[in-house]
């Protein structure tokens, strides 16, 4: 899918002396358009009330299907927003939430996946989205989630020799 702008007339800046204030295109306020990829998608999406939740689609997948989801969303033209780790101490689970947004249609998609809390292990998606490498390193810093296949899973925000994971619920300094 080419993300060059269908019918977009954002011309290059004219010769410098005239201020290019007319060149700027107006992107319309978009209702959640671009949902047609749902028909082709294999992921278990549920539509969510955007006004309450702040995102349009939500899917709960197993930790092995995470890369497949990333590949599909990458093909659909989604951009990676962020990767969030959540430590569910009570349910003894470690959850990772992948946020995606679509630069052209403004659609917001969330892929979440849970794993047992002992040694949380997720396949890395930095092969599909190189931007995910830092988000995964940060999730590894704060929660100790290992991302198999990650190019250099060294501490990102914590000192190089840090072995503690501060955002875990049972973290005592």
């Amino acid at each position, binding site marked *: 899918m080419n993300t060059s702008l269908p019918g977009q007339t954002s011309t290059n800046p004219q010769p410098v002396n005239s201020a290019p204030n007319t060149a700027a295109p107006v992107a319309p306020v978009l209702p959640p358009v671009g949902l047609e990829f749902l028909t082709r998608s294999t992921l278990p999406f549920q539509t969510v009330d955007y006004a309450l939740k702040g995102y349009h689609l939500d899917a709960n997948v197993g930790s092995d299907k995470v890369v497949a989801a990333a590949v599909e969303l990458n093909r659909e033209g989604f951009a990676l927003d962020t990767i969030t780790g959540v430590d569910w101490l009570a349910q003894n689970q470690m959850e990772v939430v992948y946020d995606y947004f679509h*630069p052209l249609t*403004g659609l917001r998609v969330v892929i979440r996946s849970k794993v047992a809390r002992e040694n949380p292990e997720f396949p890395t998606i930095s092969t599909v989205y190189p*931007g995910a490498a*830092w988000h995964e390193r940060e999730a590894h810093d704060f929660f100790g989630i290992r991302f198999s296949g990650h190019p250099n899973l060294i501490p990102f925000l914590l000192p190089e020799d840090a072995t503690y994971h501060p955002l875990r619920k049972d973290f005592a300094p």
Partner: protein
Amino acid sequence: MIIKEDSVLTQREAPSETFILNLGPQHPATHGVLRVKMTMDGEFVTRAEPVCGYIHRMQEKMAENRTYAQYLPNTSRIDYLSAMTYTHAFVGVVERAAKLQVPRRAEYIRVITSELNRISSHLVWWGAFLLDLGGFTPLLYAFDDREKILDLLEGVTGARLTYAYYRIGGLYNDVDDAFLNGTRAFVAHMRPRLKMYRELVTENIILRKRLVRIGMVTDQMCRRYGASGPVIRGSGVPYDVRKAEPYSAYPDFDFDIPCFTEGDSMARYLVRLEEIAQSLRIIEQALDRLPSGPVMAEKVPRVLKLPVGDYCYAVEAARGRFMVRLVSDNKEIPYRLKLRTPCLSNLSLFEEASQGMLLPDALAFMGSLDLVIPDIDR
């Protein structure tokens, strides 16, 4: 002197070895404590690996031992140059989860102060960016104009930089006439200044030589790294959270999204200057149609307990898309608060985009990304 065993002496042109240069935490061009380990071959960058964490201030850990109201001052210290928009995101996610109805006047004043904050942030960027490229005078012009904005905001919020002006459900206090007239005077003052900025700097041949076709970033690369804000708008994709996910009172205003297709540092430069003009337009429209009425929602529960679940709220900060993901378990403190900051994604494409560049061009490219380092490290 280590003589390499495998170097064939008969080889006429021995390749020059690479050395590692620390563009370290304390460097004028990094505008904060970002360290970039540059593997250099002579003047050319073969690999630039940013190392972050030197100003990590545990913002997300602090969210887990503070109530929602106590966490407000933190939000303006994540990206202190667009503190209003960050507070707007945090307050927005709490209002969205608690289904609080914010009065129209409060939303309009939030838009006015956010846009003023965006202009002051772009002015700091403009001054500091040209300082990187070697020009000191624009910094003085930019800070002179910025002081006018700070006076306006200080009159209402009491702070120059880290305003905790928004409250959950509305605003701290109402704006007075001095602020309204002062803002109109500022808008009238700023427009001719923008024309002077263009003549003083934008049409300067040295600047164009330093920026045009330097730091090329394609829209595919922006999408795969999640870059947003002026970086993605400089590469041809008109993505702006105010239009893509309209929030607050932005749907009421008519403004354009400046977008250039070259994807070089000059395009990003022009996007930001054009955005100042658009922000002035928004402020004018918001001032003309400012509704009267209260600035605080009627019944905001004293102890705020949000229903279980996760909520997101994204705003268009000066540097790009800032999204707050709040996970709540019906207690007065959040269970988990994730801050998706634009600078982290904007910087993550630096390593791939700066390969093979000259060192001064790599610095001009980093300046055009407009980084605030505590935004990356949180």
